[in-house]
Structures are given as structure tokens and as C-alpha cells.
């Protein structure tokens, strides 16, 4: 699962005392444990941060990468002066310290203002940091992959132990990581700091009632977690090399481990890290290399279903602040908004006519992309904004639509209608199955299980060819040059062959497709809106507001949520499918988890729970990207920063901006954010 894992051990020189098979097993085990130690350090920080602050730190992988890059800089600077040995040791001290400070600053200035809000906002905020830190790394150190951090000679090269030859660096990693893990464990179990941190993870309000200012400890815990990630980054980069993408590669296994071991459990992270390291490196990659990447996600899904709190975790208290929707943030009456929406659609409808003359046809392609993402964002809003299900794996359905369509078009028939029908049917089926397994778990666990399903699919499309032995999905390259016709049984039209003349204007294939995309979006909007106005929609909202009460009224929340999830899944599949008709290719990149993150960004940017908000969000996201690219290569940095500010200051999204401005203007000085329910006052405790 981590790309390019090198062999950490030199091939055995031949057994003197041990029998050959055993020597090979020792070597494999050492490989697994070495990777496992890195996992332990990353997962431990992630888990403790979650346990204490209930923050899922998506940026943890970036802190890991930052550790490696800082170390590279320290080694580069100090080696000429002090020599490699001292420089490496210094890097092991200085880099984690720096990353720890970065982590503390992150917590203090951006995460702390969000305590008491729904955990979703932490996910979103740290996702913003993923974008920002990745881009910063690229600005400072460039985009190239770099060789491993130079290590002192003492800990490199082979060494012979008990007749089997092992890599000294593996032993160093094991010893260093092991000692560090024990130290952290001792810190948590046997110091005042640890006692307070553990207590804080169990009951935040009570620890304040005891007169202990837990807020100060939060920054320290975050810094500690960040420093551990940095150390993992350094020791693994001493073997594997350093690259800007290394953070994105480690975060998913880290999540798997944290879920297996139990969110919030240090012991779980330690055992889970070693287990996953050994499972992947020593067993799966050796014996089942075709499906190695998928197994751990099955494991993750299984654990989440059977025991969501993981092997060593304890069940979390529910909730912690509601999701802030953009509802009621409108400054216009419904009627006015309807007219405005109509005007927008009308305006969009004439745009293609002007393409080529007034502006470049490039913008039509861009608009098609935006319209499809708007449809995708709308689909997520339908479940997230109206039932409170935060799906971190919605890219699964987009990817499913794209891949099924492509596979049908390439291998079966070029009929767009057939491909679309099959894609939508499969989309509905998969949404039902995923919903069936996922909706029984709540909150953070739901987010994690949907992420696991999406990652499973991400691995599947890459590995299925090798596993089957014939080309279906094109492996890690994907499928290209996909063409289709609109018809069935060989009778139909290809858009590219048409040039439609409307008065003085001509419409080409892409421009015609624009109308299909626009039609799909408008139809999806009208259908979902109609559904929400029906009794079905009222039940969904009732469930989101208070699931228990809805249940007492005789509505089974699971059934309603699952139906909503299927509707959402079908629209997302439609968006992904249409994407292929337009684009003519599909790659595994379409299913990467970062896309799910970007999707949530759009929904939140526009305003969750409004249906039209996410559409605005998609336009704003791509519009901003387009505008920024004009001026800077580092548009992601700006976009990420804007997004972080949105999460902190405008969580209800763009649709709430007019209201926010109005209240700022009318009430001088009262720029307090709207009162948000705090997690500290738990429901059901009134006298």
C-alpha cells in the first residue's frame, strides 16, 4: 500500500546456524516490524490527538513528511561542519522539535477556536492543512523525489546475527522506535502529564471542574503527536527516500491502524501498527501481492462493523456539536431565489452559443467540469446536509460511475445509454450495500468506514487486472480514448460528429454535452428538492435533528438514511459517468481520497444543507482555482488558506455571507460568531 517500499534487508548471505526457511522468515518479519515501527509512531500521535481532543488530523501525514524534509535540511546544513553522524542525530532531535512547534501552533490558532463544534469541522480544517502544507513543501523543496536521508555509517550496511544477515538500519529503527514507544507509553501512564491527558480524553468537563486547565495540555498533546509523526518520517525516509507525496501515502494506513487498534487508544496504535506492518510487508506482499492493498481495508470495514471502537478502544460519546448548515442564511425570499436560479440557468444555457467567438471554447470544457462537480457536490449535500451522514468516501460513487461506464464502453458496447444504465444500476446497488454496512455505525466511525470502502475501490481498480490476469480497468494507468455514441444497438449519434447550427451560432460536441450536464444538474436539483419537500424529506430532517425522537415516532432512521444514501450514490454515479463521456478517459486518480476531501470543501464552501449552496461551492472552488492559476503556480496554498479561514469564520458557507455581513454592519462590535452549542454541555443532563 505504500508505494515503493524498498527491501529493508539485504538478501541473506546464507544460513550458518539457521535453516534457510527460518532465515527468510526472520528477514521478512524484520521487514514488517521495521515498517510497523514507523506506523506505530504515526498512528500513536494520530490516535492520542483523537482521544484527547476528538480531532481527526488528516494533516498528520503532512507533519510526517515535514519531519523528513526538515531532517534533510538539517543533515544538509550540519554534515559539512560536524560530519554525518552528528548531523543525523541532530536532525533526529531538531526536526521533530520544529514539527512539534508547527503542530502546537496549528492547534493553538486554528483548532482551538473550533472545540465544541462537530468533529467534521476538524476534519475539514486539517484537510485544508493537507493542501497548504503539501504546497509549502513543494515551494520550499521542489516537487522532485529525493534519495534517502544520509545516515551515519554505523547504522547502515549488513550485519550478521545468528547466521542470518540483516540490515543494521532495520535494527536501529526497531530499537529506536521501540524505546521511543516505551517512553511515550511511560509518559502517558506514569506522569502527571499523562494522567491529565488520559483523564481529559475521558471527560473534558469534569477535568475542568477539578480546576485543571486542560486547554493548555491540548497544544502539548498536539505537539507531541506531531513530533512523533516527524520522527517516523525521518526514520522511514532514511530508507525509502523523501518525497512531497509521502504524507499522502502514510495517512491512509495510519487511519487503518488507528481504527483497528481503537480510536484514541495508544496501546491499540502500538499493537495495530506492528500488526499492519507485519501483515503487509511480511505476509501479504510476499504471498498475495495482487490483493495486498485491499486486505487491510476489508479488515478495517470488518472491525468497524463488529467493534467500531476497535480492539483496544472504548466507545465514544456521541456527537459534540451540530453540523452548521446554511439554511436560513438566505437573504432572499424563496420566490426571488427561484427566479434568480432560473436566470442563472438561462445565462448558462446561452454561454455555449458564444463560445469560440466571445470567449475561448476552453471555458465550455471548464464549465462542463464544474457542472458535473456541482452535481457531485449536490449528491453529497443530500446525505451530509440533510441526514448528517458525513461520507468521507463519496468519491467511490464518482469513481464507480466513471469506471463502470468506461469498462462497458471499452469492453462491451459503445452505446452511452447502455453504459449509463449499467453504471446507474450498479451505483444504486453499491450504494445500498455500502449504506447497509456503514449506516449502522455513527459519526466518526461512519466517516471512517466510507473512507475504507472508497480506498478499497481505489485499490480494486488498480489491482483487479493483475488478479484476474486480463485487462479490465487498465491498472494504475486507467483507460483512455473512450468513445461512445448516443443510441442503442449500433444506431445513434456521436456528439463529435455533429455541428448544430442555431442561427449564426454553431454548437460542437463539447458544447452539446454542456447541455446534457446542465440538464442533469437541474434535474438532480429539482428531484432532490422535491424529495426533501415530501414527507420523506421531513423524516430525514427529523432524523438529523434528533434521531431518537424520530425513532420514537415510529420511523426507522437506518432505513431512511439508507434510502437517502442510495439516492445520493446514484447522483454521484451519474456525475462520474457523465465525466467519462466528456473526458474520454478514467484513471485511478479519479478515486483518490483527496477528491472526497475536495468535494466536502465545495459543499462547505457553498453552504451545507441547502442543495443550491454546494452548487455555488463548486463554481466558487473551480472559479477560484482558475483565477489563482492565472497569477500564481501556488494556487493550492492560497485555496487551502482561504478554505481554512472559511472553516473557522464562515462555517455556514457562502450562502450565509450576506446575513453575516448584514449582522456585522448593523451591530457594531458584535462580531462574535453565532452561538454554537458546546460539546461540554452534554444533552440530557438538565435537572
Amino acid at each position, binding site marked *: 500500500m505504500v508505494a515503493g517500499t524498498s527491501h529493508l534487508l539485504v538478501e541473506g548471505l546464507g544460513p550458518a546456524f539457521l535453516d534457510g526457511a527460518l532465515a527468510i522468515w526472520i528477514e521478512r518479519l524484520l521487514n514488517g516490524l521495521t515498517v510497523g515501527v514507523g506506523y506505530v509512531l504515526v498512528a500513536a500521535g494520530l490516535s492520542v490527538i483523537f482521544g484527547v481532543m476528538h480531532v481527526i488530523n488528516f494533516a498528520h501525514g503532512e507533519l510526517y513528511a515535514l519531519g523528513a524534509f526538515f531532517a534533510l535540511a538539517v543533515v544538509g546544513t550540519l554534515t559539512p561542519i560536524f560530519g554525518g553522524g552528528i548531523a543525523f542525530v541532530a536532525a533526529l532531535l531538531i526536526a521533530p522539535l520544529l514539527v512539534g512547534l508547527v503542530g502546537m501552533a496549528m492547534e493553538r490558532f486554528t483548532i482551538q477556536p473550533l472545540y465544541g463544534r462537530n468533529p467534521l469541522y476538524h476534519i475539514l480544517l486539517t484537510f485544508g492543512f493537507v493542501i497548504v502544507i503539501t504546497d509549502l513543501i513543494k515551494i520550499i523543496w521542489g516537487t522532485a523525489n529525493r534519495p534517502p536521508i544520509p545516515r551515519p555509517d554505523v547504522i547502515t550496511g549488513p550485519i550478521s546475527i545468528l547466521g542470518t544477515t540483516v540490515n543494521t538500519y532495520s535494527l536501529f529503527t526497531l530499537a529506536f522506535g521501540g524505546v521511543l514507544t516505551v517512553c511515550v507509553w511511560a509518559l502517558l501512564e506514569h506522569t502527571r502529564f499523562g494522567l491529565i491527558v488520559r*483523564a481529559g480524553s475521558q471527560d473534558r468537563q469534569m477535568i475542568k471542574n477539578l480546576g485543571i486547565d486542560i486547554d493548555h495540555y491540548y497544544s502539548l498533546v498536539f505537539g507531541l503527536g506531531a513530533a512523533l509523526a516527524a520522527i517516523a518520517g525521518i526514520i522511514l525516509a532514511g530508507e525509502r527516500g523523501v518525497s512531497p507525496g509521502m504524507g499522502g501515502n502514510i495517512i491512509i494506513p495510519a487511519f487503518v491502524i488507528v481504527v483497528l487498534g481503537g480510536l484514541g487508544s495508544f496501546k491499540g496504535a502500538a499493537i495495530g501498527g506492528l500488526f499492519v506492518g507485519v501483515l503487509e510487508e511480511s505476509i501479504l506482499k510476499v504471498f498475495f501481492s495482487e490483493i495486498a492493498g485491499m486486505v487491510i481495508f476489508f479488515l478495517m470495514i470488518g472491525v468497524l462493523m463488529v467493534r467500531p471502537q476497535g480492539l483496544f478502544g472504548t466507545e465514544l460519546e456521541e456527537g459534540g456539536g451540530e453540523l452548521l448548515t446554511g439554511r436560513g442564511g438566505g437573504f432572499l425570499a424563496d420566490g426571488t431565489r427561484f427566479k434568480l436560479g432560473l436566470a442563472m440557468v438561462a445565462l448558462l444555457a446561452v454561454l455555449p452559443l458564444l463560445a469560440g467567438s466571445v470567449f475561448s471554447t476552453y471555458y465550455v470544457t471548464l464549465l462542463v467540469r464544474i457542472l458535473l462537480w456541482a452535481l457531485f457536490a449536490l449528491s453529497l449535500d443530500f446525505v451530509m446536509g440533510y441526514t448528517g451522514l458525513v461520507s468521507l468516501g463519496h468519491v467511490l460513487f464518482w469513481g464507480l460511475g466513471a469506471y463502470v461506464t468506461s469498462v462497458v464502453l471499452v469492453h462491451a458496447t459503445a452505446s452511452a445509454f447502455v453504459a449509463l444504465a449499467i453504471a446507474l444500476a450498479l451505483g444504486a446497488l453499491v450504494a445500498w450495500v455500502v449504506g447497509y454496512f456503514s449506516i449502522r455505525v455513527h459519526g466518526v466511525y461512519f466517516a471512517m468506514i466510507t473512507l475504507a470502502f472508497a480506498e478499497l475501490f481505489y485499490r480494486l481498480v488498480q489491482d483487479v487486472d493483475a488478479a484476474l490476469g486480463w485487462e479490465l480497468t487498465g491498472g494504475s494507468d486507467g483507460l483512455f480514448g473512450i468513445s461512445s455514441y448516443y443510441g442503442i444497438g449500433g444506431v445513434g449519434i456521436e456528439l463529435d460528429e455533429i455541428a448544430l447550427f442555431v442561427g449564426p451560432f454553431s454548437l460542437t460536441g463539447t458544447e452539446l454535452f454542456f447541455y446534457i450536464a446542465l440538464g442533469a444538474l437541474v434535474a438532480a436539483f429539482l428531484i432532490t428538492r422535491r424529495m426533501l419537500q415530501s414527507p420523506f424529506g421531513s423524516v430525514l430532517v427529523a432524523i438529523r435533528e434528533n434521531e431518537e425522537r424520530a425513532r420514537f415516532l415510529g420511523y426507522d432512521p437506518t432505513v431512511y438514511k439508507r434510502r437517502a444514501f442510495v439516492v445520493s450514490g446514484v447522483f454521484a454515479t451519474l456525475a462520474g459517468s457523465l465525466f467519462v463521456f466528456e473526458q474520454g478517459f478514467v484513471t485511478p486518480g479519479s478515486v483518490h481520497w483527496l477528491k472526497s476531501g475536495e468535494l466536502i470543501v465545495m459543499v462547505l464552501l457553498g453552504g451545507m444543507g441547502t442543495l443550491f449552496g454546494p452548487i455555488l461551492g463548486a463554481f466558487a472552488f473551480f472559479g477560484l482555482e482558475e483565477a489563482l492559476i492565472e497569477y500564481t503556480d501556488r494556487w493550492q496554498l492560497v485555496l487551502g488558506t482561504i478554505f481554512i479561514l472559511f472553516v473557522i469564520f464562515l462555517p455556514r458557507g457562502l450562502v450565509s455571507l450576506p446575513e453575516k455581513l448584514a449582522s456585522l454592519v448593523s451591530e457594531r462590535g458584535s462580531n462574535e460568531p453565532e452561538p454554537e452549542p458546546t460539546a461540554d454541555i452534554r444533552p440530557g443532563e438538565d*435537572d
Partner: protein
Amino acid sequence: MSADPMLSLSHVDAGYGETGILTDVSLDVGEGEVVSLVGRNGAGKTTTLRSIVGIVEPTAGSIEYRGDAITGLDAVDTAKRGIALVPEERRIFPELTVRENLELAAYGGATDADGLSIDAVLDTFENLADRTDNDGASLSGGEQQMLTIGRALVSGADCILLDEPTEGLAPYIVQDVMNAVRDLNERGITVLLVEQNVHVALELADRNYVLDRGEIVWEGGSSELEADEDVLDRYLGVSL
């Protein structure tokens, strides 16, 4: 009651969000007193305690402790000044041992005073002494209540706010809890006791306040309350 009360609420309004719970609540607790706050479910008793320690911020009125305004201070600050809240749900840290629960309270608590040592507390509550290494979650309701009182003792608090300490406990354990409260008071600790069980309140308290729909409707000594059948019936729904 002495001239200067230790804890004093004047005209306090408080609530959650836009819902007001308390209206114009004024009450005084003198140093060394046991004062009870009784009333029906939903009368605002817990909200009163939460306003004092700063979990809920009053929207009007003021709260003074030892002559200093503490209105709007947060829970950490009020605890450091020596006010300890023992919440209704007890809030024992479930995965910490009995000893760790006590150690934690000793780290926090009043900054100006040392509380009892952990060993002294364990001497007082014998059944806890047998279970020092057990997790909080494994304790019975009565043991948990003893532990919450023990926590308040090691924290060095001068004023303890007890929220329904006898709720859900078997009658013979209620007696133990009452003895523990008397013990607290004999050590010079001031107690503000919220109770639904009027019998417990009458037996322990020097003075009583009756709260109804967020307002103080009656105050007086225990014998007076015992005699006032009208108040007992109208606001507390009990007849003795």
C-alpha cells in the same frame, strides 16, 4: 449565618441558548453551613450549581465568593478558588483507577489550600481503600459517590456543591452518603446540597431554599420547612 456570606448569588438569570431557566435567583451560603436547594425535576437546581461554577454563564445578576465577583469565570477558575462541583452523574473517570482519580483531584483543585492526603481519604472511606487499583467504571454507585466526595476532599475545596448525591442509591448506602456529607461539614467545609429527596435535605441542611420553575419561592430552616405542609405539597409534592 454570618454577616458576610461565603457564597452569594444575587438576582441571577441563566439558561441554555435562548431558553431561560433561572429567573432572579438570590441565595446566600454562609461559611461552614450546609444549605439545601430543593425543588421538583426541572426546577433549575442543577443550572444554579452550573452557574456558580461557570459551566453556564449567567445572563444577568452576580455571583460572589468570599467577597470576590466570580460571575462568568469558567469552571477551571472557580475550582482553583476552592469551589468543587460534584455533579449528579458523578463523573468518575471510568478508565482511571480509584487512586488515579484522587491523584488527579489533588493536582487540581484549590490553589491556596492543601486538601486531605489521598491516604487520609482512603482511611475515611474504607471500601475505597480496598479498591485503589480498580477502574472507576467498576465501582458501584455508592462507591462512586464516595469517590466524588473523596475527590473534593483531596482537592482542598472549601465549598462543595453536591448535586443529588443520593440519587439512585440503595437506602442503606444513602445513610453512608449522608454520613460522609456530615463528615465533610465537620471538617469545616461549606456544602450547598441539591436534593430531590426532601428527607435527606431536611436532615442535613441548616437552611433550605425551595426552587420552582427557576425562581426561589421559599427559604428557611429545616424545622420550618418540615412544618410548612403547603410549601411541601405545592412545590415539592411530598407530605411528611
